[in-house]
C-alpha cells in the first residue's frame, strides 16, 4: 500500500518495510519478508545496479545454484535480485537514503525527485567499505594510483581489465583473502604485481609467486601526479622503496554506518557497527541492522543468512510486538577484537560471532557473566584475524538475561 502526498518539495510515502541497501543481506531480508506477506517491501539501492559487492567478485565462493554448480559473485548477485523481485519486493536503484526525517522516516533523493518514506520497519543493510589510505594515516604525497580493492574491482567492472585504467606495476597491501583477490584482479588485468606488503608475521594465504614482505608497513607514498613508488619498512626495521605506479590497500573494513550515526544510535566500540540484540534490533524501535554494516566484511552467505534471520523479528514488530527495551551487553577482551551482536536477548540463546586480533592456536575461550564463568572450552582449530568464528547456542545457554554484562575472552 503506497500513498503519495506532495508537500515541501518532497513526496511523502508509506511502506511496510523499507530496506536500505540491495546487497546480499538487504536482498535476502526483502525476499523473505515479501514472501512472508509483510506487505509493501521496498529496497533502496544508491548504486545504479542492485546486488552489492558480489557483483564485482568474479570468482566462485558464493554457494551453488539449484544444480549444485558453484556460483560466482555476479551470478549470485543476479540471483539474489531475482529472488527478491520474485517474492514481490520492489528494488529501486539509483535511489539514496540521505538521512532521517523523523522516527522510521527516511529522506530520499531519487532522479524522480525527493521523497520522505515512512515505514513500519526499517532494515539497514548498508554494508561496509575498506579504509582508504587517509584513514590508515599513510604519509607521503597524494598521487593518482592509490586504490582500495573495492575501487580496483569497480574500475575493472567499469572499464574492463585493462592496464590503461589501472597501472603497469602494483603493490598490494594486506595479507588476507581480500589481498589475494586484489592480486588476482590485477593479474587478470595484465598488471604486474611487484609485491604484497603485510603487517602479519606470515601471510594468511598463498600469493602464487608474488614476493610477500611480512611484518612490514608502508611508511610513505612517493610521486607527484602519479604514484612512483612506496617506502616500506620491513620486519628487520630497514626501509626500502618499491617502485610501482599503483598501490592497492586491502581489507581493514569499517561499516558504512552513516544512517546509524545520523540517528544517534549507539555504536559497538569493537566493530563500529550499530549495537543490536540477537534479533538484529537497534536501540531505535522498528529499526533493524543486518549484514556487513554490523562489523565489516563476512562472506556474502553469512550476510544473506542474517538478512533471512531478521525477518522473524521484523514480522513481530509489524504485528505490533513490543520493542525490547534492552538485552545483556556482551563484550570481547583482548586478544579478541570483537564479538557480535552487542546485546544478548531477548530471544533464547543464539550464536555469537567472534573475531580475534591476532592468530590464536587452539585457544581456550571463556564466556563470563558478572565475573562468573559460564562456559570454558578449548577450540580445536586456529583463529585468524581475517575470519570470524561462530560460537553456537551452547556458549550462551547459561546466560541470565536479567543479569549483568557478559564477557568473551581467550587465552592460548
Amino acid at each position, binding site marked *: 500500500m503506497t500513498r503519495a502526498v506532495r508537500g515541501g*518539495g518532497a513526496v511523502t510515502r508509506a511502506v511496510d518495510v523499507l530496506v536500505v541497501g540491495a546487497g546480499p543481506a538487504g536482498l535476502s531480508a526483502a525476499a523473505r519478508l515479501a514472501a512472508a506477506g509483510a506487505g509493501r517491501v521496498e529496497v533502496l539501492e544508491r548504486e545504479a545496479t542492485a546486488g552489492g559487492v558480489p557483483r564485482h567478485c568474479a570468482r566462485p565462493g558464493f554457494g551453488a545454484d539449484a544444480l549444485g554448480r558453484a556460483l560466482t559473485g555476479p551470478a549470485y548477485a543476479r540471483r539474489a535480485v531475482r529472488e527478491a523481485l520474485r517474492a514481490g519486493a520492489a528494488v529501486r536503484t539509483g535511489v539514496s537514503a540521505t538521512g532521517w526525517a523523523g522516527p522510521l522516516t527516511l529522506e530520499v533523493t531519487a532522479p524522480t525527485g525527493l521523497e520522505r518514506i515512512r515505514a513500519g520497519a526499517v532494515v539497514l543493510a548498508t554494508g561496509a567499505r575498506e579504509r582508504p589510505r587517509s584513514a590508515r594515516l599513510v604519509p607521503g604525497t597524494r598521487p593518482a594510483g592509490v586504490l582500495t580493492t573495492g575501487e580496483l574491482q569497480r*574500475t575493472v567492472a567499469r572499464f574492463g581489465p585493462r592496464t590503461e*585504467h589501472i597501472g603497469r606495476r602494483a603493490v598490494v597491501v594486506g595479507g588476507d583473502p581480500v589481498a589475494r583477490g586484489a592480486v588476482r584482479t590485477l593479474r587478470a588485468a595484465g598488471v604486474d604485481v611487484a609485491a604484497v606488503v603485510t603487517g602479519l608475521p606470515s601471510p594468511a594465504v598463498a600469493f602464487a609467486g608474488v614476493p610477500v614482505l611480512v611484518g612490514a608497513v608502508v611508511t610513505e607514498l612517493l610521486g607527484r601526479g602519479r604514484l612512483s613508488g612506496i617506502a616500506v619498512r620491513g620486519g628487520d626495521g630497514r626501509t626500502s622503496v618499491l617502485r610501482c605506479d599503483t598501490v592497492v590497500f586491502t581489507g581493514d573494513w569499517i561499516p558504512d554506518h552513516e544512517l546509524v550515526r545520523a540517528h544517534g544510535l549507539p555504536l559497538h566500540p569493537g566493530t563500529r557497527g550499530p549495537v543490536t540484540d540477537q534479533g538484529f534490533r537497534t536501540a531505535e524501535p522498528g529499526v533493524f541492522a543486518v549484514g556487513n554494516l554490523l562489523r565489516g566484511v563476512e562472506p556474502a552467505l553469512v550476510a544473506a543468512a542474517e538478512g533471512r534471520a531478521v525477518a522473524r523479528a521484523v514480522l513481530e514488530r509489524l504485528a505490533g510486538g513490543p520493542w525490547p527495551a534492552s538485552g545483556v551487553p556482551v563484550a570481547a577482551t583482548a586478544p579478541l577484537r570483537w564479538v557480535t551482536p552487542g546485546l544478548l536477548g531477548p530471544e533464547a540463546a543464539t550464536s555469537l560471532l567472534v573475531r580475534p586480533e591476532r592468530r590464536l592456536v587452539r585457544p581456550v575461550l571463556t564466556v563470563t557473566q558478572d565475573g562468573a564463568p559460564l562456559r570454558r572450552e578449548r577450540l580445536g582449530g586456529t583463529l585468524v584475524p581475517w575470519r570470524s568464528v561462530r560460537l553456537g547456542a551452547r556458549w550462551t545457554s547459561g546466560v541470565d538475561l536479567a543479569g549483568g554484562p557478559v564477557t568473551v575472552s581467550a587465552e592460548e
Partner: protein
Amino acid sequence: MSVTRTGPLPTGEASEYDVVVVGAGVVGSAIARALARYPLRIALMEAANDVGDGTSKANTAILHTGFDAAPGTLEARLVREGHRLLGAYAREAGIPVEPLGALLVAWDEEQRATLPRLAEKAERNGHRTTRLLGATELAAREPHLGPGALGALEVPGESVICPWTTTLAYATQAVRSGVDLHLNCRVEKVRPGDPYHRLVTRRGVLRTRLLVNACGLHADAFDALVGREDFTVTPRRGQLLVFDKFARDLVRHILLPVPGALGKGVLISPTVYGNVMLGPTAEDLDDKTATGTTAEGLAGLREQGGRILPALLDEEVTAVYAGLRAATGQEDYRIAAHPALRYVTVGGIRSTGLTASLAIAEHVLGLLADCGLDPGPARPLAPVRMPNLGEAFPRPYRDAELIARDPEFGTIVCHCERVTRGEIRAALVSTIPPGGLDGLRRRTRARGGRCQGHHCGAEVRALFEEGPREGRSAGRYGKGAP
C-alpha cells in the same frame, strides 16, 4: 576570453597584452579579476594545469579578521580590508562562508596571561569585539574540549570559507570578463623590453607591457628571471588532517592556539564541507615541492589534537595533506613595484593571502598605475554565481525544483559527499573546466569523502573521461552558473 591548456599560444597581435599576471593562485586570480574591469588585454598564466593548484588549494581555509596581525604592517591593513571585501564578494558569488567566530583557548597559566595582551593587540588592529571567557563559559560553549582548558579569548568574525571556490570564482569571473587564461604554461624566460617584455614558454612567446609576479612559492625564482634578488622564499610546510563529518558536532568555533614561547600550536576548525580540520604543522624546508605528509607530523598532530578535543581521534580521517606557505624571513608581505621594469612583485603572501586576496588585488592596481598603467574607465564585471559546496547552504541533492528540471541532479554519484551527476556534468562544461580528477574534486567535492573513491572512484572517473556532453546540464544550474 579563452582558456588554453595545450597547443601553441596565440601569435601576432593576439599575443600582445597590456598586463600579464603570472601565477593563477588565489592572489594572481584576484589580480586578473581586478584588471578585468578595465578595457585592457590581460592574460593570466599558470604553470600547473589548473587554477589554485599550489598553496591556494592546501591551507587552513579560514577567513581571518586580522586581529593578531602585526599592527601597522601592510599585511594587517590588507587582511582587514580583504576580510570585508571577501565577505561581501562571497555572498554575491555564492562562495560558502560560515562566520563561526574563533576561540583562542588557554591551556596553562602562561597562555591565560597572554589573552589580555592579545585582546589589546586586536584592539590596535581595529577589532574591539573580542571578549575573555572563563573556564565555565568556555566549557558551555565548547563542551567537548579536553580537560585543562582555563579560559579563552573569543574573536567574533573569524570565519571558515571554501578556498577552492574562492580562487575559481575569481578566475572564472576574470575569464568571462575577457581575460585569457593559459594553463600548463610555465614562464621559462623573461626578456625585458620596451614597449613589450617577452615571456618565453614551451608553448610560445607572449608579449606584455606590464608584468605581475604572483608566483607564490616561486616568486623569488621569477624575480630572478627579471634580474631582481630582493628576498628568498622558504617553504614552510603545514600538514593537516581532515576528520569525517561525524566529528563536526564536536566543535562549534574555530579553536585557535595561543601563540607562546613553545611555538604556535595547532588549530582545530570546522570546514564549510562539514568536516573538522586539525593542523597545521610548521616546518621550514628547502624543497618547494615537498607537499608530502610525514609519520612524525601526523602523529604529532593527533597527539596535540587529542588533548584539545579527545573525541576527535575516534573519528575516521578522510584526508591527510600538506601545504607550503611562502615564508620570506619578514613578518609582512613583500609587495613591490619596479616602475623602471613595469613590473610588480607580489611575494611573501603567507597564510593570510586567501583573506587578503581582494585587497591585495586593489593594492596591486595602484602599483601598476605607478608603473605607468593607464587602465581607462572601469566597467562592471561579468556576473558569477558559483556552485555551492558548503554544507550550511542548500545543495542540489536536496533541491526538489532543480531535480524536477533535470533528474541528473537527483542522481547521487559520490555518496559520501552527496555529489550528483548533474554537478559533475556542470563542472565539466564550466568556464574553467577541471584538468583532472583532483580539479573535479575541488569543483564538486566528488571523491573527497570518507571512502576516497572506494565506492564512486570508477564512476566519477568514467564521467570525467566521457567529458562534456553538449547541451546537457550546462546552464540549467541557475543563472550565472560558471
